[in-house]
């Protein structure tokens, strides 16, 4: 242990700016551990870290970036979270607002966005030119590969949708293989 105060987080490289921001904030006596978590994660969101945090990264099939965030207080065990947050950049800030201004734990989707707007967060487009270029390559250059669809027609491992579900039969030899695959995700959170 290096002693207190202390900050520790996943990943090095561009994520170190978040570590430093949170640690340096904790050196000020008026900043709490919760504040430091919010400050560190916000730095990563603003800097887009390695592309896996914040606006513009990890677009969905429709090229939209949505954000997930959660913050937890180690004293009260209370947590606030947002899932599939649309059009708001500061996801960890909205999660903090869920923690501070509601007795709920998780808000999702468009209604989480509305909560954020009601709490003073600015609605913004999370798509960037880089997002659009990446999406175009995925759709037109790579024929929508990889993707997360299965048991659909047309074959999702070979082409783009729209997809329709295939009838499933639990006596099929492939059925349980699809439920517990050895495969990893095509990309990670």
């Amino acid at each position, binding site marked *: *242990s*290096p*002693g*207190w*105060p*202390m*900050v*520790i*987080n*996943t*990943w*090095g*490289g561009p*994520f*170190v700016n978040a*570590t430093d921001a949170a640690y340096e904030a*904790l050196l000020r006596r008026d*900043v709490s*551990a919760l504040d*430091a*978590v*919010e400050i*560190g994660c916000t730095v*990563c969101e603003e800097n887009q*870290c390695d592309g*896996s*945090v*914040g606006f513009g990264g*990890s*677009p*969905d099939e*429709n090229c*939209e970036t949505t*954000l*997930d*965030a*959660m*913050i*937890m*207080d*180690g*004293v009260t065990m209370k*947590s606030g*979270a947002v*899932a*599939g947050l649309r059009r708001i950049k500061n996801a960890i800030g909205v999660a903090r607002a869920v923690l501070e201004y509601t007795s709920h*734990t*998780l808000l*999702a989707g468009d209604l989480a966005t509305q909560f954020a707007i009601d709490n003073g967060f600015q609605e913004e487009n999370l798509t960037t030119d880089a997002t659009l270029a990446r999406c175009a390559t*995925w759709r037109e250059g790579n024929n*929508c590969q*990889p993707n*997360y669809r299965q048991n659909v027609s047309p074959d999702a491992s070979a082409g783009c949708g729209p997809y329709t579900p295939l009838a499933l039969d639990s006596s099929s030899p492939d059925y349980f293989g699809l439920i517990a695959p*050895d495969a*990893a*995700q*095509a*990309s*990670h*959170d």
Partner: protein
Amino acid sequence: TISLMAIDAAGIMAAGTSTNGASFKVPGRVGDGPITGSGSYVDGDVGACGATGDGDIMMRFLPCYQAVENLRRGMNPEEAAYDAVLRMVRKYPAVASGIVVVDKDGEHGAAASGWGGTFTYAFRGGLMNATNVVGVPNI
């Protein structure tokens, strides 16, 4: 994904996670990041955990809840992280996962699986002048 844990000068702990998820996901998909006990978890009496990886798989195991409970049962942070990762690897051998654990005294450790490169974590505390980055081999 960033999953970050903080201990203030009085030993008060907090944790959090922020992510934009997986690329080219089905619209509406939510990963492990906002799930308490999966993306991160903290009990200030014991310690905290942060996670990153294949969220669709990880959120089925609540690995950060498991890791903090492992601390409570007497494991050190590295052992706690290793056990949490191993529980996922046993069922999903190819899962990409990275678990970082810190106890209430600031002792820390991590475990990882399935990365093409090396999973890393960063920490800074006490009187350190700069952040240290630690590489974690896949189990």
